[in-house]
């Protein structure tokens, strides 16, 4: 389903389920991404980086807004709720909260969130918007 400027406020765009994964990269120095260390600090394992959590939500938004996202997409995310570890089941969601005429189209504003269904916590909340023709 693609973005529609006539969509009603309150409508939920198609959600996206994702199994969290924390890849190992050679330039990572933050210990919280080290499995053993993270467990000593009370976490269940190495935390998935915030950029990947954002990436999961971006995938949902890109699926909905398509190539409009490239020129008109905006996202503001706050990380909360203890994050995620590899294997956690996550669901990205977005709800249209308002619309505003912009140039030749309409900008849709959304509340976004990423839910960790393994822990029951919201782990990312924020807003996003994109202009659609």
């Amino acid at each position, binding site marked *: 389903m693609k973005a529609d400027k006539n969509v009603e406020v309150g409508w939920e765009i198609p959600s996206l389920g994702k*199994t969290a994964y924390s890849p190992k990269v050679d330039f990572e*120095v933050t210990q919280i991404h080290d499995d053993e260390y993270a467990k000593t600090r009370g976490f269940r394992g190495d*935390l998935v980086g*915030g950029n990947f959590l*954002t990436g999961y939500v971006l995938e949902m938004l890109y699926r909905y807004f398509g190539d409009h996202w*490239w020129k008109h997409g*905006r996202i*503001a995310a706050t*990380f909360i709720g203890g994050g995620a570890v590899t294997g956690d089941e996550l669901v990205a969601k977005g709800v249209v909260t308002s619309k505003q005429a912009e140039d030749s189209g309409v900008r849709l504003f959304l509340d976004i969130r990423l839910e960790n269904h393994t822990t029951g916590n919201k782990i990312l909340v924020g807003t996003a918007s994109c202009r659609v023709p």
Partner: protein
Amino acid sequence: MKEKCSFDEIEIGMEMGPLEFDVSPEAIKEYRNWARWEVGGGDNPANALPGIFLINHVRMLTTTLGGAGSRIWAKSQHEFLNPIRVDSKLVKRGKIVEKYLKRGKQYLIYEIETRDQDGRLIMRSRETSFFGESKEGS
């Protein structure tokens, strides 16, 4: 990687980068694997994936600050302005714009611009993170 510097030594206006990245099919494949990105998205196969290279914002910090670049993400804002084209080259430049203490945590805010090889502005980012202990023990 640069030697670590203390929070006090981090100056507002401190520049990060430039770092260059090739938007190769291999890089896209690697990101697709990391992010478990499934088939779908935009209609134009000449475009990459919006989240690609965001992880390199971490690399920019660690390159600039060493162990002090060991961060836990608090907030992340991105404005997309032009497509990332497959087989293009990206250049990221940034600077630290704010630092503060809150509830005993050392926060940094930094802004990053991503441009392609023609100077076209691809995206603007504003990241907020706080200090996390590094593998060097800083």
